[in-house]
């Protein structure tokens, strides 16, 4: 049975390798073993012991099995005594397991309640999931004097706890930034709380982790942590309305026209006015099942789009941003999408035929509503103009 | 469930063991039916009791759903508007009494008193029918007051719960009538008293479920 032994070794070996190596992964955007905030760290500290204990128990069981298999293989010995066992062994197992589990259980309870604590979080953000993107709305509060609505990237200040108030406009989603905290479901009709705190500036990847239909795989998000000062700058920029394009004849101007014609059906751009100068309010509620589409007022202040599935930045600009040191990061991110950096190709593809870039249900259902952005049959010129217009939404 | 119960009318499903009557060492334990069984119990009765145990979780789920949703009446009328306690009390009383007549049928059957067995079976079926009739009447009333099945969570869960119960009663009535018919035809061999008993168990269960529904759903205000 030598092959037997070798074959079986592989198994817990692997389990062990995983648990040990998982800690030291390079550039692993969603590694659950690399906490970057106090909440995630609490979890990480808690889980190391059970993982290693499990590894040990696993190896133990395997070792015993292999020993028995080898020692008691049929060598022609006599039929063994038909003994029915020895309760001590079972008592021993119970005791051993009970002790091990108690050692796991006690700290677990503590952490459960620590993570449920919310009083120490000064700032709150309403996080709303819908098929298949996240919307963040910052209510008026200390440091934010008028509400902010954005999507895809959750921007938070470093070094303080932000309280996320999670809910959903359609089905259940789940908000998860592995390096900052565990996940919490966004359940329609409920508001559930989740702590978020990042220690150092940077972009922390996350992904919707409750199956939410067709494009669940394309419902991603980032948490972007900025130093408090930078965060204040960001807030200031976001609270300002979009500046209307001065020259109607320019490409951007033509794009704005198209936008007013088509896109406002769903997309809000604060400060956009119609010909009578009345503010244009998006009618997403009558056009979409979820009743919402991303607010594009400061579209170019983000670096991803379509549920953070695609990068607004070209490859090299993106790598530059990702590689930025904590001190450089803030400025770089606040710079937004420099015209040279815009990932024009995919943005155009999106405008040409969004459902092709991201599976959605763009056709209207019986009560005339869609789930996702339809292909709008725009001409190439219109698309070019729109891109020019979108560039102005800094 | 009628499979299990009526099954025994052809009392053969445990026939597999008959031969034991002659050969099993426990010969004398077999008793009149020649069925040796490990627990000395009737397969059919044990099966019925297990089924009733299982039904507890079925109705438990439906009742919990109602309990969770009874307050959520949307725009529609709520419990306190629609319920007519006196009427429901009456029909509850009818169902309760049908339990009594069912017992009487069972004892009669055990006495091999065919006449009374038939009588009480019929009466039980009749009372059951009255109850179901009452439900139908009651629900039409609700409906006219604007409480459709889809009106609100309250209405959906109420109709689902009471509907399931109503279906159980109806099945019971069918079983009672089938048995009644079989009896006149004298078609059963074996122990018909047990069939009566089995249907009795089922019938009483339907009754106790109503005992709960009556209190939790009707008497306790939302």
């Amino acid at each position, binding site marked *: 049975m030598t092959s*037997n032994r070798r074959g079986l070794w592989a198994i817990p070996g692997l389990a062990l390798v995983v648990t040990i190596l998982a800690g030291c992964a390079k550039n692993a955007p969603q590694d659950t073993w690399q906490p970057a905030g106090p909440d995630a760290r609490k979890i990480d500290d808690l889980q190391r012991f059970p993982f290693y204990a499990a590894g040990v128990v696993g190896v133990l069981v395997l070792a015993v099995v292999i020993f028995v298999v080898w020692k008691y293989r049929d060598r022609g010995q006599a039929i063994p005594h038909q003994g029915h066992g020895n309760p001590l062994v079972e008592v021993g197992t119970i005791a051993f397991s009970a002790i091990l589990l108690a050692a796991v259980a006690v700290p677990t309870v503590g952490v459960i309640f620590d*993570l449920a604590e919310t009083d120490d979080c000064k700032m709150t953000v309403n996080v709303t999931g819908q098929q298949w993107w996240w919307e963040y709305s910052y209510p008026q509060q200390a440091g934010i004097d008028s509400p902010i609505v954005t999507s895809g990237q959750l921007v938070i200040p470093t070094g303080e706890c932000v309280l996320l108030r999670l809910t959903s406009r359609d089905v259940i989603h789940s908000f998860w930034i592995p390096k900052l905290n565990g996940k919490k479901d966004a359940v329609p009709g409920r508001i559930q709380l989740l702590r978020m705190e990042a220690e150092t500036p940077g972009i922390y990847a996350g992904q919707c982790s409750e199956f939410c239909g067709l494009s669940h795989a394309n419902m991603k998000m980032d948490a972007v942590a900025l130093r408090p000062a930078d965060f204040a700058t960001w807030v200031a920029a976001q609270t300002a309305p979009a500046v209307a394009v001065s020259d109607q004849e320019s490409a951007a101007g033509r794009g704005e026209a198209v936008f007013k014609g088509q896109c406002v059906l769903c997309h809000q751009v604060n400060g956009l006015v119609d010909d009578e100068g009345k503010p244009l309010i998006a009618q997403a509620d009558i056009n979409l099942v979820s009743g919402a589409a991303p607010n594009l007022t400061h579209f170019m202040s983000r670096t991803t789009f379509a549920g953070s599935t695609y990068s607004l930045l070209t490859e090299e600009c993106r790598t530059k941003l990702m590689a930025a040191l904590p001190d450089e990061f803030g400025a770089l991110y606040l710079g937004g999408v420099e015209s040279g950096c815009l990932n024009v190709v995919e943005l155009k593809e999106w405008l040409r035929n969004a459902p092709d870039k991201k599976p959605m249900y763009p056709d209207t259902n019986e009560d005339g509503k869609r789930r996702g952005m339809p292909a709008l049959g725009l001409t190439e010129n219109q698309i070019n103009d729109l891109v020019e217009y979108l560039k102005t939404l800094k | 469930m009628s499979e299990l119960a009526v099954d025994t009318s052809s009392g053969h499903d445990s026939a597999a063991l008959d031969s034991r009557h002659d050969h099993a060492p426990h010969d004398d334990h077999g008793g009149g039916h020649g069925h040796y069984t490990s627990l000395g119990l009737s397969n059919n009765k044990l099966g019925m009791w*297990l089924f009733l145990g299982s039904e507890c979780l079925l109705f438990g789920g439906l009742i919990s759903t109602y309990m969770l949703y009874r307050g959520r009446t949307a725009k529609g009328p709520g419990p306190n508007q629609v319920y007519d306690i006196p009427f429901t009390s009456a029909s509850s009383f009818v169902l309760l009494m049908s339990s009594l007549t069912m017992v009487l049928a069972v004892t009669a059957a055990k006495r091999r008193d065919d006449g009374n067995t038939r009588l009480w079976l019929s009466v039980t079926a009749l009372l059951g029918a009255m109850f179901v009739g009452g439900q139908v009447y009651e629900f039409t009333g609700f409906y006219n007051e604007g409480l459709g099945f889809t009106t609100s969570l309250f209405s959906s869960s109420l109709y689902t719960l009471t509907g399931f119960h109503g279906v159980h009663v109806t099945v019971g009535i069918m079983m009672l009538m089938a048995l009644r018919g079989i009896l006149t035809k004298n078609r059963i061999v074996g122990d018909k008293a047990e069939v009566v008993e089995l249907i009795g168990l089922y019938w009483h269960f339907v009754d106790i479920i109503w005992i709960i529904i009556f209190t939790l759903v009707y008497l306790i205000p939302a």
Partner: protein
Amino acid sequence: MAIIERPTGEMLRGPVGVGPRASLGMYRRPVETTGWRSWLFTVDHKQLGLMYGITAFVFFLVGGLEALLIRLQLAQPNGKVLSADAYNQMFTMHATTMVFLFVMPMAAGFANYFVPLQVGARDVAFPRINAFGYWCFLAGGLFLNSSWLLGGAADGGWFMYAPNSSALFSPSHGVDFWALGLQITGIASLTGSINLIVTILNMRAPGMSLMKMPIFTWMILVVQFLLLFAVPVITVALFLLSFQRTFGATFFDVSAGADPLLWQHLFWIFGHPEVYILVLPSFGIVSEVLPVFSRKPLFGYPMVVFSGAAIGFVGWGVWAHHMFASGLGPVSVTVFSLSTMLIAIPTGIKIINWVMTMWGGKLRFTTAMLFAIGLIVEFTIGGLSGVTHSVSPSDTQQTDTYYIVAHFHYVLFGGAIFGIFSGFYYWWPKMFGRLLDEKLGKLNFWLMVIGMNMTFGPMHILGLQGQPRRMYRYTTDRIGEGFFNLKFWNQISSLGALILAVGIIVFIVNVVRTARGPANAPLDPWDARSLEWLTTSPPKVHNFDVIPTVSHLDEFFHLKYAENEATGEMERVATAEELMKIQEDNAEQNIHLPAPSYWPLILALALPVTAYGVIYNKILIAVGATMIVLSIFGWALEPSMADDSDLEPPAPSDGPTKELAPIV
């Protein structure tokens, strides 16, 4: 059905003085004992057991094929094999098929075949209901899968969370098929559980007290109780779902004020007991196999029984560990976290007792034994990752990632499936009188061990690296670099799936080759310990010529071996052949077995008809309903025995039982 029962004096006894004629009811019972009819109308537990097994295995191949497509899609970033929509249907049906159409019915097959044999009975308590159960399972399974051809299968994941399952978010009929199909297979499980519980409790051979019962039978008993109480819960959930989708109720419609968590609770109250329903039969099988090939009794039999019952019991108090991220509040989370950890203890006892069973034994590494040992190891790995889930804060990092997928494939494939394959190799000679080829068997085993660890091992890494489950694609921008590169591990996993496939094809080849070969298996090839071996292989239609009277746990072994007072060693005192001879010499006469019946089949067929009606048109519902009522009456009114003239040649009504043909 080979034996037609005859009227006997005592069946005609009683005050109602009716003669045999009048007692025959309205409709004749079928008497075919060969050809396709004998399969359609059989009520024989062994025949039904085989039918369960064969059907389930076909569904295993279907579910496996779906799995292969999943792995193919994930072998590359931005896989193009399946569309997002097709992928979602694929994993939903993969899980549904594997859980409800393979593992559960396969266990039901083993239970049907071997429980009556192990307890020394001639059939189950309610043979017709048994047949009805099988046809429900088949009807439900075909109904479910017919959705592939009728506008797409269910696409909500196997736990079908609301509100994503509502018509607004899942417009195709897939979810309707899913809900109604599972409702139908649920009937099979419920009737089956009642049937087996009664059989086990009430039809044991004389002298077989509960604590002398074979351990497999014990585990089946526990499982049937779990089914008895768990099935009604999902029945409620499925009804609510169907009523919402079909009649416009709003049970999970948030805009109407509903709470989507209601579904989660109902599903998982069923769902967690369900996972033990899946694994305990396999625990039972290996608890039979290990002693046989260690030539020792099961170590601490009472503890294994007790821990099995304990697992079943505690299993009811942990369901919310599937909802740690749903927002239950810290108190509930704590409670369910702790109760979940508790379950590790009884399961640990089982593992230890299995190891101790081998300890000091005389081990023979047959394929059956290898699979049993494989189960100990692989299941432990899965169980341990389960314990890491039970630490709810870290579960919030794990839930809905591939780490969970790794966990449950280790417990399901390394637990349930390994046990089932162990059972195949162990009981094949009993069922078919043929031994599966051991060389191919070992190849089969090693391919499956290597394959499963390659497939599911990497999923631990993928999950801890944050790859969520149920993603039809993963993109290059987040797959990371170096050792933890997601693409690499996904490819290993996909490769492993192919190896698994080869392993399973090897098994199929083995089966085909064995079927071609001669039926020359010895009567007692493994020197086994329990009663099912105290009859011919395949067993006689009436199982035992003489119902044995039991005096030991492992009765069959103790008939063969006795301890030599002098040396204190076990010595053989009889061979299986000799024991068989004794049986045949005092064979009982006049054995009554239930006759075949049309009604189980007809009644079961009525259900999918009704179900199609619910989806497509109301008239069909009426048709189905009438079919149901009629067949129930037919069922009730059919005679308890065949008409004399049904027998060939017609027998005098007082004659002894007439055997028409040996069982297939």
